[in-house]
């Protein structure tokens, strides 16, 4: 397998900067995801890696070879598209083998590889059908087959699961992870679904508006988001954000009074004092107390999610939500005593949105 290095990749369309100074690398046999909302530049980056578009600035190295001027057909990569992009006028067999045929592989070799790949993906019995006759899941596997049959150095996947229904998506997530792990492939995966990104990748790169927000493992981006965007994007239900003031080491806001730990105070001191900050707490890190506490909120809505409740509360200007087990059943208007796991809270600069801790 191969590694991929992107250095300072920038892509402009006229005045619009689609990708802004993007540097990162993918190591051998690593599964890396580019994740972010629609329009954040992840697909453009993927196209640049593939060679389908030229970067305005920056360099690409595939397997340590400078590749900016190498056309896509010679980069030894394979791509799976969101719409699968199967060739409608060819049978599955020919779809899978097309890349090999263009590269003038021996007929017998093509036959062998196509059958192997098809069996491997469980579509061996579909080889003589045309794409129009297949289901969504089957088409996706054909698209995968087309990619893996060439045994390329690098796999690029552009939102391959977006067109599947929810059930199939969950299953395919696991299947894909196993597949690429078996193949020991280097993968760059693009998605807008943070759950996919979290569950499948060795490392993620979170993007927004063309700029990389953070690169790290799932744990890193989940537990230590580097800015407000990452914190809000990763994790579901979304992290709660409230504007707070800090006086003498205590956080104050509507319905909240919470003492900070020493490490947190140190970090704030190093960073510099501000009038206001943003406090972030994940819903799963808020617990309901039976005893009185300094954090009190009034219940607005209780959502029954089957295995748990998602409770939305408010106090003054602040609205938060928490996830709770079903041992209590709070009612609308009820006032609850809450506790935030202070070690798992995050503080953000209200202007720059950067995480202080």
């Amino acid at each position, binding site marked *: 397998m191969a590694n991929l290095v992107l250095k300072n990749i920038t892509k402009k369309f006229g005045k619009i900067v689609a990708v802004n100074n993007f540097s990162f690398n993918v190591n051998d046999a690593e599964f890396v995801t580019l994740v972010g909302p629609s329009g954040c530049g992840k697909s453009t980056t993927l196209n640049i890696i593939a060679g389908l578009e030229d970067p305005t600035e920056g360099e690409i190295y595939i397997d340590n070879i400078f590749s900016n001027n190498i056309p896509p*057909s010679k980069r030894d990569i394979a791509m799976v598209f969101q719409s699968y992009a199967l060739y409608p006028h060819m049978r599955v067999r020919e779809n899978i083998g097309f890349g090999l045929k263009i590269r003038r592989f021996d007929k017998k070799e093509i036959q062998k590889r196509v059958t192997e790949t098809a069996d491997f993906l469980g579509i061996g019995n579909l080889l003589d059908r045309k794409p129009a006759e297949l289901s969504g899941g089957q088409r996706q596997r054909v698209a995968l087959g087309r990619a893996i049959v060439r045994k390329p150095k690098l796999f690029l996947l552009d939102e391959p699961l977006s067109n599947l229904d929810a059930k199939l998506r969950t299953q395919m997530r696991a299947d894909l992870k196993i597949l690429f792990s078996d193949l020991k492939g280097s993968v760059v995966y693009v998605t807008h679904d943070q759950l996919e990104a979290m569950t499948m990748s060795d490392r993620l790169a979170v993007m927004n508006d063309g700029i990389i927000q953070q690169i790290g493992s799932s744990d890193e981006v989940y537990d230590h988001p580097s800015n407000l965007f990452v914190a809000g994007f990763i994790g579901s239900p979304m992290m709660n954000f409230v504007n707070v003031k800090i006086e003498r080491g205590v956080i104050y806001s509507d319905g909240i009074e919470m003492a900070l730990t020493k490490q947190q105070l140190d970090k704030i001191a190093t960073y510099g004092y501000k009038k206001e900050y943003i406090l972030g707490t994940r819903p799963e890190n808020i617990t309901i107390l039976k005893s009185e506490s300094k954090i009190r909120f009034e219940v607005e809505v209780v959502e029954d999610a089957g295995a748990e409740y998602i409770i939305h509360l408010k106090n003054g200007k602040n609205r938060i939500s928490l996830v709770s087990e079903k041992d209590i059943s709070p009612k609308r208007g009820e006032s609850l005593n809450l506790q935030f796991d202070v070690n798992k809270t995050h503080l953000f600069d209200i202007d720059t949105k950067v995480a202080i801790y």
Partner: protein
Amino acid sequence: MFGLTKSTVEKVLLYIICTIVIIVVVFPLYWLIITSLKYDIDSYVYPPQFFPVNITFKNYIDILFLAQEGNLVKYFLNSLIITISTIFLSLLFGSMAAYSLSKHYLSIMFRRMMLALVLVIRIFPPITTAIPYYIILSKFRLVDTHIGLIISYVSFSLPFTIWLMIGFFQSLPTEIEKAATIDGCNFWQRFIKIVIPLSLPGLAVTAIFGFLYSWNEFMLASILTSENAKTLPVVIAGFISDKYLFWGKMTALGVLMTIPVIIFSSFAQRSIVKGLTFGAVKE
């Protein structure tokens, strides 16, 4: 009309109108056919014979086999060669140009200009280019050759082909072409192996109109050919003289000319409508 339920009176009226129109449309064709099956004398009869009293195939035999009219087989082949070459070349070059103009590898100003140029050419009355073209051809010694006529016919068909195929190419999903690129196709391979096979309906429409045009075209053929490359329309017009009108032979040749067209188009009706209405109607 408008898909609303109609009263019986309306239905009957519509049936009557349809029948009348069909008769008006078909009658001349019918007349063409039966005149070709009559002896010439019977064509001069008044009141006209609506059902031929003496059916004969003499006219057909005369034009096909008798040497006086020249070698009809040769002229038929001329028409065929020229028509098929025109269709092939205009389809190939037209779709190549359309492919180039439908992608964004060239600047948009350039592409718009090219397209405008191509459409303006469609507007030229043929006579304006025919005379100088004839003079030019005679300088190149290409008068009365198949090539001379083919170049002219292909050039006439190109604007329509390009216009139609651009529409087709733009409706192809771009991801399929991206997949082909990644699979290793270069520009030409992408065009031939992926884009063309997926654009066959569009090519069919262009082929049919190309056929209708080349097969039936008269003015340029009469100017640019004399003996070697003479096409069927020119042969028919050659029968006209002030002295004697060979109704039988003329209509027989007319029928022979029309048969291939009717056969060809019966397979292609929907394509013809598509071609006629393309651009006029948003689907």
